[in-house]
């Protein structure tokens, strides 16, 4: 099998190119392991992010055959022949497969991504019924990998859009029975750069490696936002 890997070094003053690396696909080998092999034995200058190698930390999102995926979760046996490996699209490239994640992280900070409480905490835990907890099941699993953000055509059109991951995060708190942020939390997403720019293209749903449905969360936020306005006036 051959990996065609995107290469770019800002220092070199050369345009980006693709390098071909042959790899021997051992049983059970992931794309991340293949890249590690390349960096250790063929070309140590190859740069890519990694940490957990178990699809839980969100470090290794990249574009494989044109589709954003986690390299560690991608098994070589599911790929054939000439494989195209590139950085996540629409984010500035730092080097090779490493992109600038700053703009993506910035979006989270805009939505106050934490539980808001107004009443003083009790002595023990806040109670939450299993039924209420279940609402967080999927939405709290996001690993901030950026795959959805990079695949969203609306993000591409205007960088001010919050994007699927940050909106999902906003919904995570809106859906938490313990959250007392109420309208304040919603205010941050109930605006043009927020939920209303989502045109339900559903790319995010398709690419999310954690099988999360950000589009559904955004729809739910839209409903909540409308309901909130209704109550206000």
């Amino acid at each position, binding site marked *: 099998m051959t990996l065609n890997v995107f290469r770019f070094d800002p220092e070199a003053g050369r345009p980006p190119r693709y390098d071909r690396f042959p790899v021997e696909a051992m049983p059970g080998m992931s794309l991340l392991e293949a890249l590690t092999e390349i960096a250790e034995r063929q070309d140590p200058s190859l740069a890519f992010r990694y940490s957990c190698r178990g*699809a839980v930390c969100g470090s290794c999102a990249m574009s494989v055959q044109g589709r954003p995926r986690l390299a560690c979760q991608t098994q070589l046996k599911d790929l054939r022949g000439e494989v195209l490996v590139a950085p996540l699209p629409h984010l500035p490239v730092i080097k090779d497969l490493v992109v600038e994640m700053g703009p993506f992280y910035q979006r989270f900070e805009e939505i106050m991504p934490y539980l808001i409480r107004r009443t003083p905490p009790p002595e023990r835990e806040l109670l939450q019924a*299993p039924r209420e907890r279940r609402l967080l099941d999927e939405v709290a699993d996001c690993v901030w990998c950026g795959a959805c953000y990079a695949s969203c055509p609306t993000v591409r059109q205007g960088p001010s859009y919050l994007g699927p991951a940050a909106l999902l995060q906003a919904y995570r708190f809106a859906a938490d029975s313990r959250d007392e942020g109420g309208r304040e939390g919603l205010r941050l997403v109930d605006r043009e750069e927020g939920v209303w720019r989502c045109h339900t293209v559903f790319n995010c749903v398709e690419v999310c490696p954690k099988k999360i449905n950000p589009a559904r969360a955004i729809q739910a936020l839209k409903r909540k936002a409308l309901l909130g306005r209704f109550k206000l006036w």
Partner: protein
Amino acid sequence: MPYHPVLVVGGGLAGLRAALEARFQGVEAAVLSLVHPLRSHSGAAQGGVNAPLGNSEEGKDDTPERHAYETVVGSDFLADQDAVEAMTREATERIFELEHWGAPFSRTPQGKIAQRPFGGGAFPRTCYAADRTGHYLLHTLYQQALKYRVQVYIEWTALSLVVAQGQVQGVVALHLPSGEIETFSAGAVVMATGGAGRLYRKSTNALINTGHGLALAYTAGAPLKDMEFIQFHPTSLYGSNILISEAARGERGYLLNNQGERFMQRYAPRFMELAPRDIVARSVITELKEGRGFDGAYVLLDLRHLGAERILERLPGIRELAISFAGVDPIEEPIPVEPAQHYTMGGIDCNTWGESRLPGLLACGECACVSVHGANRLGGNSLLETVVFGQRAGRRAAELARAGASTSSEEPLKKALEEARTMIEGFKRSNGNEDPASIREEMRRAMWEGVGIFREKEGLEGAVARLQELGERARRLRPAHGGQFFNQDLLRCWELPGQLLVAEAIAGGALRREESRGSHFRLDFPQRDDARFLHHTLAHLTPEGPRFEPRDVAITRWPPEVRKY
């Protein structure tokens, strides 16, 4: 040059909790982390975090004393009992605090935090959030860090600690994306750099857990403690060594050999699969050695009898991992598992407030050895350690930073920066012929084979000699390219010599300890020997290698007894 009263190195659970606490104490704190905090290894923890909440029917009589006692027994009496009591006393408060900050714990029917049984505990004491506890807790603390505006330096790697007049003054660090080097001056530095699993060939740890943080403290003059105690987990996915949490056994999964037999009945008839990990790991290896494994390499973890519903509700993450990484759906098939390195019990020697022996340097989390785990850590106690001792270290660091009006001059920091620059230039221009990958590979093999689950004199001596030889070779390291941006190759060259020193502290400590205790098992000395070895091992770095020194164990309430499961 940036100055922070409290500078935390490491953005995992321990580091974030320490930085937050400094903030709560009214002192400015910053976190410096090799990866974005959410990429820290803490996020991979699955099973849960211990606290004697007494939320379940079987667990309602649980107390901090019971929790402490079981931790001490689990530690094979090598834990410092005052430290253990501090941890179990503060556990409940720390867990409720996380819950109040929004941690999405799983719930009992009454809406309380759900708890499950874990190895070595008589009560269901492990608070969990499905099987993604670490992920949820890490996100919760990071959310708080955003809320309280803790400054985080993302993808900055500490290269060295700056010590002058016997006091830590700050760190020199490299920003991987830009290749920039900078010194950070600090009133107090808190190390929270996690474990050293990647010194071993097979490990459940994240790839970034290289032990570099331990090396920074060690080479700066802070002794390491009890490094010979390395925990091996019995159930990692065969091949990739991704962890299959003890939660799978807590939920009553079975371990089977090639005869279809629940072999734990031979080794721990009372606790069966829920015996402490060291015992289960050795049992698995024994089964493999005696030909009762599959392909001589793995055994099976069977969850099928739990049924689809329970697996989907309680162990969804494990199911996903088994499907993604082994192509096995545990609802239908048993999971192939093998033991792998899992946890570093030892670490930077520090007291219950996180203070190391080096003034101005504190430590918390897995890189620290307060000594609550002794010779063997109980599952669920290390996440607890990160928040309890993270809080304590943050508090003490804030006090120290406030007390010590920064009188030190900038000279030593500037000098250290120049030294680091020179060293990096030297690396780039080196005419050496060694590449880091092959030395690292040999180190990991030496550790796995010589300083693994079963140890004996000859193998340990061999490993020590091998590590020294690799240390010699590491002097001739040379990065394959001198690029400025995201040069991971350079970083690997930088950290390797220190990793070898830490590995030698482990191997040397294991050679010195002629007994078997907790995770440290000597074939040539199979019994625990309290007369000779009921003490901690301190390793000081000298130009001739590690100098070992014993240190008394704090025994306050529970005299040593035989550990039996």
